[in-house]
């Protein structure tokens, strides 16, 4: 999955219109970024990349682009 599609998946996860996220957003500024969204992100990582992303690594992310980088490194 390329970066554009990853961002679309995250738009969907956070119930945002497609194309909303660009990567530069601070996660703390996103209202929908909560523990349920973290689990949803982990589910995407597992379904699309076959990996189990550590919640600690997700917690270390500060921007949407950090999440994308985490998946691209998987």
């Amino acid at each position, binding site marked *: 999955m390329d970066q554009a599609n990853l961002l679309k998946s995250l738009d969907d996860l956070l119930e945002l219109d497609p194309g909303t996220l660009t990567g530069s957003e601070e996660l703390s500024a996103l209202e929908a970024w909560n*523990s*349920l969204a*973290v*689990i*949803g992100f*982990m*589910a995407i990582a*597992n*379904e699309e990349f076959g990996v*189990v*992303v*550590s*919640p600690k690594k*997700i917690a270390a992310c500060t921007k949407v682009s950090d999440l994308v980088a985490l998946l691209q490194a998987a």
Partner: protein
Amino acid sequence: MNAAIHHIEYYLPTGTLTSEALTVEFPDWSVAKIEEKVGIKTRHVAADSECSSDLAVAAARKVFDSGAAKPSDIDFLLLCTQSPDYFLPTTACLVQDRLGLSKQCGALDFNLGCSGYVYGLGLAKGLIETGQASNVLLVTAETYTKFIHKSDRGVRTIFGDAAAATLLGVGIDDTARLGPFVYGTDGSGADNLIVRAGGMRLRQAPPESILDASLHMDGPEIFAFTMSQIPGCVRTLLTRTGMAIGDYDLFVFHQANRHMLEHLRKGLRIPEDKFYIAMEHCGNTVSATIPIALKHAQMEGRLWVGARVMLVGFGVGYSWGAVSIIWSGSLDKAVEVSQSMQISTQSSGPVMGAAPTREQVGIIDGGSLQ
């Protein structure tokens, strides 16, 4: 001799917490969102004076009321709980007395959470097949809601109280109906689902960390554990049985929450119509979820004599287990269905007569009642 499940009943306390009530307390949540994410509409909540032994006794009495066994038939009581009435005595001893079980009946508690039912079946099998007991009553009873802090909407949304009672005895033929089993443990995950205070290590939570007295669940860590361990556990069981996913008639996993179950189901490529979910009316009731789901599956005619079922329990500990069973069933709803089809069934003593066969309940394919 081979052990078999003969009868299952369950009991839910009368108090409830609906998704509507949760949204009144937490207005930024919607009923639709809660039900979409966790698949639960109602959780049952034990009253302040209602403890695990009360729920256990109520569930067990339903077994006796059904005619499946008499209290005097039971020669071993296994009780799984993490919310016992007291540190001591053993809750199973209280339940033995209240049910009027024989004084020659063995009774013990074991402390496991969502994996407890699978472990209980393993213990019961051991007792029966080594000749130590003939009729085992396996009770899983929890009042987790007593551990939950009112402000923790995450766990309040998921957990409910319940007890289930399963009667096990010697099977009606030489078929091995329970097993093989797969067990697993990883205590390194202890901190992710825990009640820190109240035991000997921390008798009472200090005022500055009062939440230590409540149930703490790190949802993402629990999800990571489940994704890491449960698919492998299922595959190990498939290897041991020499069976494929398609050889099973039904899968009953611990009813954790809808999102987690759906993720596991898709990852393991289990067809939706063979993956049984029954939690909407009661929530995640810890070690009682699997027998509650089995009971509902039976009532809906989704189980028949000879049906091959995989049970998978997983959670706090971490602890997990899976077992392959061949359904033996009992004379309740599923048989009522068959009786309406003019099929004669009779019971004799504590070991129940046969439940309907796949053909008798009219199941042609996919486990649905035709």
